[in-house]
């Protein structure tokens, strides 16, 4: 009988192969030094740190990886990828898992995270760049939390971090990109 909570890792799982191929990364090269997690600006909010995510991929723990908050909290800032001593593009590997999670309709660990990404893309498609005010308002309305983040609004406005009106720039090019991807 298997011990409660025990996992049975597989040295060469389909999941490991998939992530490796999709991201073009040699996941087994990772020796778990933890430099990625140490530098990650959003690791504090992840259930699996980037190192643990790579370990989960190594062990073939697909379910754990797909339902983790890590794939959604990662902002693809590439700090981990740039610093990795064995040259694994960790952000890219995490992206591969994120794409798989969407394709397999895995339940996302973060509430409304899919909505956020959709609104984000719409905003970019509409203005050709990110329109923060539009994104915030639309996300708050659609997620039915209209007042979330209102407390920092005055400060951001005062410091000029938030433009009231959108700036349209390169709309045509961005539209072309969207069109190509949708095709």
């Amino acid at each position, binding site marked *: 009988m298997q*011990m409660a*909570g*025990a996992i049975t890792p*597989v*040295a060469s799982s389909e999941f490991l192969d998939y992530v490796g191929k999709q991201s073009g990364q*040699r996941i087994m090269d990772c*020796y778990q030094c933890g430099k990625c997690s140490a530098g990650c600006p959003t690791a504090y909010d992840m259930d699996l740190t980037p190192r643990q995510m790579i370990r989960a991929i190594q*062990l073939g723990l697909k379910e754990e990886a797909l339902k983790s908050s890590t794939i959604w909290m990662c902002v693809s800032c590439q700090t981990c990828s740039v610093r990795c001593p064995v040259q694994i593009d960790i952000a890219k590997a995490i992206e591969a898992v994120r794409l798989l999670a969407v394709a397999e309709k895995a339940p996302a660990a973060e509430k409304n995270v899919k909505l956020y990404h959709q609104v984000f893309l719409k905003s970019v498609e509409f203005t050709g760049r990110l329109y923060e005010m539009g994104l915030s308002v639309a996300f708050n309305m659609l997620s039915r939390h209209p007042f979330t983040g209102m407390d920092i609004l005055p400060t951001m406005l005062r410091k000029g971090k938030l433009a009231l009106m959108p700036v349209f720039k390169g709309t045509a090019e961005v539209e072309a990109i969207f069109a190509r991807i949708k095709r």
Partner: protein
Amino acid sequence: MARIGVFVCHCGSNIAGVVDINRTVEAARKMPQVVYAADAKYTCSEAGQSAIRDAIKQHRLNRVVVSACSPRMHENTFRRTVASAGLNPYLMEIANIREHCSWVHGDNKEAATSKAIDLIGMAVAKVTRDEPLTPKRVSMTPRALVIGGGITGIQAALDIANAGHEVVLVEREPSIGGRMSQLDKTFPTLDCSACILTPKMVDLAQHPKITLLTSAEVKSVNGFVGNFEVEIRQKSRLVDHVKCTGCGTCWQKCPENVNSEFDMGMGKRKSIYIPFAQAVPNKPVIDTASCRYIKYLKWAETKEGKKPPECRICEKICPTGAIDWEQPEQILTEKFGAIVVATGFKTFDHSVLGEYGGGRIPDVISGLQLERLMSASGPTGGEVKRPSDGAHPKTVVIVSCVGSRDDRIGRPYCSKICCMYNAKHAIMLKEHDPEIQIYIFYIDVRTGGKDFEEFYRRSQQEAGALWIRGRVSKIHREGKKLIVRGEDSLIGRPVEIPADLVVLATGVEASDGVVGLAQTLNISHDSYNFLVEAHPKLRPVETHTDGVFVAGAAVGPRDIPESVAHGGAAAAKAIGLLSKEELATDPMTAIVDPVKCVSCFACHEVCPFGAPEKETLRDGRTVSVINESKCKGCGLCIVACRPGAINLRGFTSQQVLAEVTSLWR
């Protein structure tokens, strides 16, 4: 009249940081018969030494006290210094104010200073009564004894012999080759072990300067550096190796099968056997524990129990009549100038670990057993088949640190070679079967060494081995599978792997019988029975017994390149010794006053070196006399001598009393 010079060393801040040097020098200046006292930043430096030489000349000093570190560190240095200024080197004493004072009293500078002054006072009292001593010269026997025929011993023997000295190599097994001969391949190059070892074994056997004694053991060692007298027990092989041609008929026909020690119980051998095909010498021995005829002979004495068959097949078929049931054990007495001890190691016996099956699960094997299974000359012809049912394992779990880094079983040390051989096993298993899945549990991966880290990575990248950080807690059987339980401490989850074969990376242990040998040779061993070198960094192959050198895994866990290097290093030291025509002996030996001697010969009883001898005087009395070449100056006889007839040159009772007396003046 003594004219004593005292030299107080700062040793950088080692002494000066604690002891008040100025006060110490002032105090020394006032001591009886001291005519000069000075301090130096580093007395052992060239500047410090030449200051001593100059002072000896300038102030006409005839006695010197160096107040510095332990005499074990620099006694010889300063003896040479005073000798080069024309003084007898034994008219110099050291006051140890570093190890015995500043290092241990760093918390109390006042007391340390007063203790330093006392220590110097003692040395001054002693040096006043020093007598000039002259070393005796003894001849050198330019032959070396090498104990152990593994790769270390082979290397040492070849190096010494190639330098032109005679060598006797003693190996207790029937063949030389040692642990290395059991290996299939070697890390990190995956060289075939036999291919690089057997040429050396053959070189050794054919070397005109080397006498090879297998199935032999060192029985006793007497004498001293340059002139050891060693008794070697040549065990009875029951086969006359002069007549035997090694044709092999006997071991093909012998009807008795027993577990092969060489194959670690993975295969069988006969009662008359050579341990392995490339054995050197390639001539068999009879194992008296299993031989049917020997059993019959034992039965014939008592006639108890069932009568064993009176086999003697080997004797009947031997074409040269080499079987000799009456062959006696022989004791050979040989003289040597130097001895190299290279007794190697054995692997940890995992049967004490109940959680890993206690040695009762056939498919839980040791790394060395896996080597035998993978070896083309092994019991399976190189096919990896698990012992229980001969199936080819598809999932193999390797468990590190079995018998290493474990306080519970008295093995707290790291065996050093296992991480690398685990990586090697992973790569080799994958070469044997590309479908195989390998899991390696580890606590830390320690692959320090040239090309070692790359090799470890190769086990992951090429062999796809999954290294799991965690110690296995339990192995149990479930049907045909072995369930291995551990934790992946990197992801923080318990792990269970159903395996077909489990390989335990058993650690390195000192060889059996090494304690007895160490006592015979008068060298030290540590609490794990590894031999102790004279200095772990600066004298790695010497011991505290002059002329006895240690090398290889007998000193601690070592891999092949290191063992070869140490074998060569021990050989170099031995060659340096053997190339001298004569040796100077330490003149600090015991001397008997024949007038006081009452002929009780208590000194003969206590001396560990056999130095006291008897001499008949002209008045007819027989008294004790010390053989200076055997005496080590240990002082045991002086304590035992009831009439106080014995004294130690350089450490006379008068000197010791003067030292003590100086403390209450």
